[in-house]
């Protein structure tokens, strides 16, 4: 078998695939953050906890109710999204008129509560979640072995991201959303129910995080802390990409995952920090972010 830069291709492509998978989670999570930030003007610190909740609801559905992965894929985002709607209606709405830093603090507090509650009930060692039988096994592509489930995650998240982009950029509902992001008062004056739109947007962003959580459940173990460290990396992704562009978030997410995967091959010690280093470089060269608009 040939070698690339002294690295066996199996290892190289394996890490590239793992990078793409991480990238799909970065993309889905930063997309949700960007959509929420656009309309609510808050950074949703609870996002990581909501991603974790998505995975946990899938696990509970399987173990308590016997509902399989495919049902969880639909039900879990709906349930977690509904909790998001409750959070928006009863908590975030009350501080909407305040400085956006309070939104950050409030959602940080919520994340602590959720993570603490799950850690109390389930410990922090992680619970296994089986790959659904339809996606078990894999294909040998000649240059690498592709586990079916991993291929599915990359494709599914790409489809979800592009659908979201299409909804926001090309549909009437998306036009309302963009209008309300630009100027909520004027949009309201045109007879569009902006508060409802805000609530639904938050619910949608949260559901997106939960969906990522369900997709992640069979790959990583279901763990109360699974979202806490991830969300900080996603923040760096958001700083690198800028939150002005939907497509930008998707591209940044996937490519940073890829870069991280490649770093794992060539310089394993740097894999944990490479995204932060890129963030530093981007801040030096293009402070507004790769796709950001300077306000």
């Amino acid at each position, binding site marked *: 078998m040939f070698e690339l830069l002294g690295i066996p291709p199996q290892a190289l492509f394996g890490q590239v695939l793992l990078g793409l998978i991480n990238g799909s989670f970065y993309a889905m999570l930063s997309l949700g953050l960007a959509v929420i930030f656009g309309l609510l003007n808050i950074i949703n610190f609870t996002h990581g906890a909501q991603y974790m909740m998505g995975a946990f609801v899938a696990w509970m559905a399987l173990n308590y109710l016997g509902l399989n992965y495919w049902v969880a894929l639909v039900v879990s985002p709906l349930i977690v999204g509904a909790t998001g709607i409750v959070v928006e209606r009863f908590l975030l709405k009350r501080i909407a008129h305040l400085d956006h*830093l*309070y939104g950050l*603090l409030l959602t940080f507090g919520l994340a602590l*509560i959720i993570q603490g509650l799950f*850690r109390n009930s389930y410990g922090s060692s992680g619970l296994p979640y089986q790959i659904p039988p339809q996606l078990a096994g894999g294909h040998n592509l000649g240059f690498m072995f592709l586990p079916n489930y991993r291929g599915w995650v990359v494709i599914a998240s790409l489809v979800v991201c592009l659908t979201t982009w299409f909804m926001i950029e090309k549909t009437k509902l998306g036009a309302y959303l963009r209008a309300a992001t630009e100027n909520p008062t004027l949009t309201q004056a045109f007879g569009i129910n902006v508060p409802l739109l805000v609530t639904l947007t938050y619910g949608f962003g949260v559901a997106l995080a939960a969906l990522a959580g369900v997709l992640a459940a069979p790959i990583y173990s279901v763990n109360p802390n699974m979202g806490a460290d991830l969300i900080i990396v996603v923040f760096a992704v958001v700083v690198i990409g800028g939150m002005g562009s939907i497509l930008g978030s998707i591209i940044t997410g996937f490519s940073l995952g890829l870069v991280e995967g490649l770093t794992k091959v060539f310089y394993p010690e740097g894999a944990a920090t490479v995204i*932060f280093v890129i*963030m530093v470089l981007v801040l030096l060269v293009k402070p507004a972010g790769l796709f950001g608009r300077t306000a």
Partner: protein
Amino acid sequence: MADITSAEAPAAALGISETSRGTERLHRAIMIGLAVALVIAPFVAYPVFVMKVLCFGLFALAFNLLLGYGGLLSFGHAAYFGMASYVSAYTAKHWGLTPELAILSGTLIAGMLGALFGSLAIRRQGIYFAMITLALAQMVFFFSLQTPRFTGGEDGIQAVPRGKLFGLVSLADDRALYWLVAVIFMGGLLLIYRIIHSPFGEVCKAIRDNEPRAISLGYRANQYKLAVFVLSATLAGLAGATKAIVFQLASLTDVHWSMSGEVVLMTLVGGLGTVFGPIAGALVIVAMQNYLATLGAWVTVIQGCIFVICVLLFREGIVGVIAKAIKRPM
């Protein structure tokens, strides 16, 4: 959402004139009261507990200097606190430095780290600033995790010798060490008080309240922001370095993001943008952690609840409420 009045901004003052004579007298009285309390404290309370409150109080004071008076929310102050703690522990244990030199070296490194990170973070504003500082601090966390030769990895640096102050006075006894910590705390508090009420501090407040206007008046806003950032990081480092000597331990907990969250919580509970609030906040949170330590993960849940309740109902914080009642800034 665009029309945030200064009264709603977290950092804004309470809309009370800050330069009246009575206020000065009040502050002097509080300082004297604090000094007296510090003298009495080790005789009525467990000295190690008081020292913990003082270290975290100084940490929160430093954080509040940046948020309350610079208007910059850093979500990564654990980096300076923790890095200083590591440096102080390492130099005291492996180089055999005397405690005052160990603390000094930790503080200096934190200041340098603050200059480096600050110059990056001030390139973006508001919410991005918070995310950048958090991400940079996470980088420090991973660095600490991956360099066990320096940090001791998961174990941390344990059994740090307290040593002899100036090579003369042994600090092994809690009471002896207590006076050093009390002096450091009081010195830090007085320095921060001086900074806030100096012309430099006034310019920082002006930039906090209206940056474009301050710039149009000829102030180089970024230089002021960086300066207040470095001061804040340095003082956070002083707190962390002292903490390492007190507890004879520097560990990953000190650089973890939850530590950054804790200092935000202390400041929020005590009162954002009040001079003395962070001390009250640190006392409340440290006491809570002490008494609820047996509850494990519930402490996290309770802290989260305090965050939510403070943001929704109690934004002025303890000292902020008192200041409002007596109509004087505190």
